[in-house]
């Protein structure tokens, strides 16, 4: 499962941050997840619990899902594609590599393939709270 790879990446980042900041106990971890990643939160949470070291065992994970926002570089139109517009295989491809949107989506106003992903991709550690 792809969620496991991202959970491993998150735990690894939290360990790096807490070492750097000298934190021995972590209370709260907030994670920003791009909607395009199409992460199954239940699997992601389960993976985090399985992978976390002891000093993270009381930490609460908070998740903030960031809606996808695309902007056409030709006509300037901004839009958020709806998940149900995409077929299952395309959603799965985007789930693995969000930039694959450039292979499957077009600007709904002018039809251009030249657009930016303004928001809605990636998994970001927002903050770690601990002492």
């Amino acid at each position: 499962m792809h969620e496991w790879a991202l959970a491993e990446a998150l735990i690894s980042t939290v360990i790096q941050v807490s070492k750097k900041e000298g934190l021995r106990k972590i209370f709260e971890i907030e994670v920003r997840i791009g909607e395009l990643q199409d992460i199954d939160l239940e699997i992601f949470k389960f993976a985090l619990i399985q992978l976390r070291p002891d000093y993270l065992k009381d930490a609460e994970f908070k998740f903030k899902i960031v809606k996808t926002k695309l902007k056409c570089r030709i006509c300037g139109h901004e839009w958020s594609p709806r998940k149900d517009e995409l077929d299952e295989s395309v959603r799965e491809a985007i789930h693995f590599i969000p930039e694959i949107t450039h292979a499957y989506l077009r600007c709904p106003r002018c039809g251009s393939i030249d657009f930016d992903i303004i928001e809605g991709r990636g998994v970001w550690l927002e903050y770690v709270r601990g002492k």
Partner: protein
Amino acid sequence: MKSSSKWGNDVVNDKLKDVRLSVIDERIRDVKNVIAVSSGKGGVGKSLVASALSLSLARRGYGVGLFDLDLTSPSTHIILDVKDAQPIEDRGIVPPKIHGISYMSITYYSRDKPTPLRGRDFSNALIELMAITRWGTLDFLIIDMPPGISDATLDIIGLIKRSKFLIITTPSKLAFETVKKLIKLLSDLHIEIIGIIENMKIKESDFIKVNADKLGVKYLGEVNFDENLEDALGDVDKFSNTEFFKRIDGIVEELLKALAFEAQ
């Protein structure tokens, strides 16, 4: 960064971090050599060399991975006739074995659709693939690079600091002019250059060898233009019998020596 909160003297790290970057080293921890097959110019035969090199090493018994990083114009899947293979999902993705090579390409996901990627998108796609792909234990990870010294080269140098570059050129002064810039960039950044292969040679000339020597880069050998190569693309048995493949297979000996890697 100190901050008061409901826990008193807590520490809050408020710098947003891209979590993917923390696992890239881990994903290639058990890969002994990372070789970026690169050139300053397109059309010099990087993908063909990367494919032949991977096949040759795999047939010698080495553990080999091939990562097609030419994300907008991938072609190794055609050379190796990858067809319907798909990565396995197992705590990330595990590349399928194609002719004994662990093979990874964006084409598993983009299929035959054009995938235009600007610089930032290219970097993000590369980081995503590096973060989720489990290569396992390999002697060699061969990276088929896109041409030039833009995003892919800078990203690979930044993300995989122990990458070694294998440079491909044609006998053309035009190709070598761009290769010189690549060599200068890599040298300035203290990146190891394994050597240079002169591909598509059509007449006797020592121009590339003399200039490689001047730049202090090992000349690994020349490969004559092979007019039968085109007909062998997509048929690995035919490809393995081309003069092109046989010559690369010979150069692999030089490459292994250059890497001080004992033949198995």
